[in-house]
């Protein structure tokens, strides 16, 4: 077994092509932001009933996946699995990149993005949103330090482990904060559940690992590096466990709600009569993004099945966040229990939402920002190992 060697990406034509493609997406997002800024949110699909739309689905996905992408590094530093050690630098870098992409979408969708400075300087400490801003900024610093101590030569492994533990604890807090954005909304029947925090942590494990595998494999392919089948299958089955955890927390969330009569309406909406949301839930989130990936990695473990499972987990993840964020708002507030609303202002009805192209462009732009930053990082920093063939992966013992 060779010593792990980290090398920058070489500027091959395929790397250039990818960079240009990503920049095109970022440019399209920039244009749509300027257009939304000019006309106002009136040109988006969002309205005064569905106030958070597709951009938030992308943003929350990227933020959740960001903390999950760090897990590969945590498994190495905190839980001492040596096989994951060569990947931990890039894992940390990717988590920063994904968070950056997610926050970019979140910020650019604000009604007044020009006032970002106010958001950064004026804190209301009862707001979980304000806490999240601290958690996000802290994440950049802590994970930045974590990357640095991994890359500085001759540093004691204890330092790396300490930084790794700090980053791991921080990322758990961060995902708890992200889940609590929804979990602490007491007024809306679709939210108001403490289980949102652990659910989001399980989601981050699954989505983050899937994103890490797909992006790492792509970069390895582009730079002709070898990623061993055994290692890939091992990570695939870990992802399968995480996907199982997501399904478990989802099941508990819905079962708890079904048990309370007052929540029967919202559960009927999500699980039976919600139209697009019901379809997304059963078909995309549960079957396509949950059961099939688990079957693939546990029953037919192979290189191809792991890649397919990763893709499906990401698709299922988007569906799940679409249901949580938009479905949760589509279901009406119960302001007048026991009454039927004869006349009102979009009262007591399922609110419709059709995402606009601008929102899609903004969301995809966030993904492009994340991938571009990750690529630039891999291009200028020595974070990607040259060889992850199975013969070259360290034993855990």
């Amino acid at each position: 077994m060779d010593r792990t060697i980290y090398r920058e990406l070489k500027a091959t034509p395929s790397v250039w092509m990818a960079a240009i493609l990503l920049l095109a997406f970022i440019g399209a997002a920039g244009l749509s932001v300027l257009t939304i800024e000019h006309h106002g949110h009136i040109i988006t699909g969002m309205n005064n009933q569905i106030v958070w739309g597709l951009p938030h689905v992308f943003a929350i996905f990227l933020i959740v996946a960001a903390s999950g992408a760090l897990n590969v590094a945590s498994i190495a530093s905190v839980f001492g699995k040596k096989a994951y050690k060569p990947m931990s630098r890039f894992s940390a870098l990717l988590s920063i990149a994904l968070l950056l992409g997610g926050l970019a979408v979140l910020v650019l969708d604000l009604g007044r993005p020009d006032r970002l400075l106010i958001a950064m300087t004026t804190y209301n400490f009862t707001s979980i949103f304000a806490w999240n801003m601290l958690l996000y900024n802290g994440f950049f610093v802590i994970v930045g330090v974590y990357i640095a101590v991994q890359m500085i030569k001759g540093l004691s492994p204890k330092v790396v482990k300490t930084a790794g533990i700090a980053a791991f604890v921080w990322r758990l807090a961060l995902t708890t904060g992200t889940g609590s954005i929804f979990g602490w909304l007491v007024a809306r029947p679709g939210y108001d559940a403490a289980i949102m925090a652990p659910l989001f942590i399980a989601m981050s494990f699954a989505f983050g690992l899937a994103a890490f595998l797909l992006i790492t494999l792509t970069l390895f392919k582009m730079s002709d590096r070898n990623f061993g089948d055994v290692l890939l299958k091992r990570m695939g089955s870990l992802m399968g466990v995480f996907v199982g955890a997501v399904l478990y927390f989802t099941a508990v969330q819905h079962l708890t709600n079904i048990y309370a009569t007052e929540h029967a309406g919202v559960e009927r909406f999500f699980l039976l009569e919600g139209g697009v949301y019901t379809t997304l839930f059963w078909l995309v989130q549960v079957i396509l993004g949950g059961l099939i990936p688990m079957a693939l990695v546990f029953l037919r473990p192979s290189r191809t099945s792991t890649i397919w499972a990763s893709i499906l987990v990401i698709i299922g993840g988007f569906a799940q966040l679409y249901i949580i964020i938009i479905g949760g708002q589509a279901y009406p507030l119960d302001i007048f229990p026991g009454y039927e609303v004869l006349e009102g202002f979009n009262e007591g009805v399922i609110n419709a939402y059709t995402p606009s192209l601008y929102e899609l462009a903004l969301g995809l732009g966030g993904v492009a920002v994340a991938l571009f930053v990750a690529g630039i990082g891999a291009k200028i920093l020595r974070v990607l190992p040259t060889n992850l063939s199975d013969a070259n992966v360290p034993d855990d013992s």
Partner: protein
Amino acid sequence: MSNRAELTRRDILKSGAAVATITLASGVTLMAFGGSDANATGADAGKRWGLLIDANKCAADCSDCVTACKTENGWGSHGEHASPETDVAWIRKVTLKDKQTGRTVSAPIMCQHCETPPCVDVCPTGASMKRADGIVLVDKHACIGCRYCMMACPFKARSFVHEDVTDQSVNAPRGKGTVESCTLCVHRIDKGRIPACVESCEAAGHSAILFGDLKDPDSAISKALLNYPSIALRADLGLNPGVRYQNL
């Protein structure tokens, strides 16, 4: 404070605190209604302004309160892309039918001016705020347009401005990209006037909206709340709203 150049910059910055102190100290004797300008010292922590809406007196076919609010605060006009879903609603009329008994009833719904407002709790910048006299407002100078308050409000009382606004009313500055809601006509209250919806309801001959100080046990609103049954919307949330309903 006639010549502010004579004050140092420090004094000017400090005078915010000074004014607040005066308010507290003079709160006992102050604010005889219709007093002179010298008596006006702003939001009074000794008061809590509220509304009591009697649904029995509210006519289903009347929307004078909504019209008056639109005129007073300058909302309700919309541009080419506007739809009912993107429209702003500071106050709205709802007509409800009891699912069990079939009884129908009408009432206006606006910001409920909660004692513990969820919108204030969730606002990341503190733009969503509650004045000393219980009026919940959006400080549009600090609002970044994140819409988290709209997610948190149990009454759907808040609206996001989706389009450019021009020729605003001097009573209520409002603009694209920020969130807004009923201000209880704070500009009127601070000058000793009743909210526009209360005035218009009285003028329409219904007097379904009773306005007053909830902290004053002798006020008409406090007496009505003491002597007759009333409800708070979403009372299960324990937010203690300043807007109450009778016969709903």
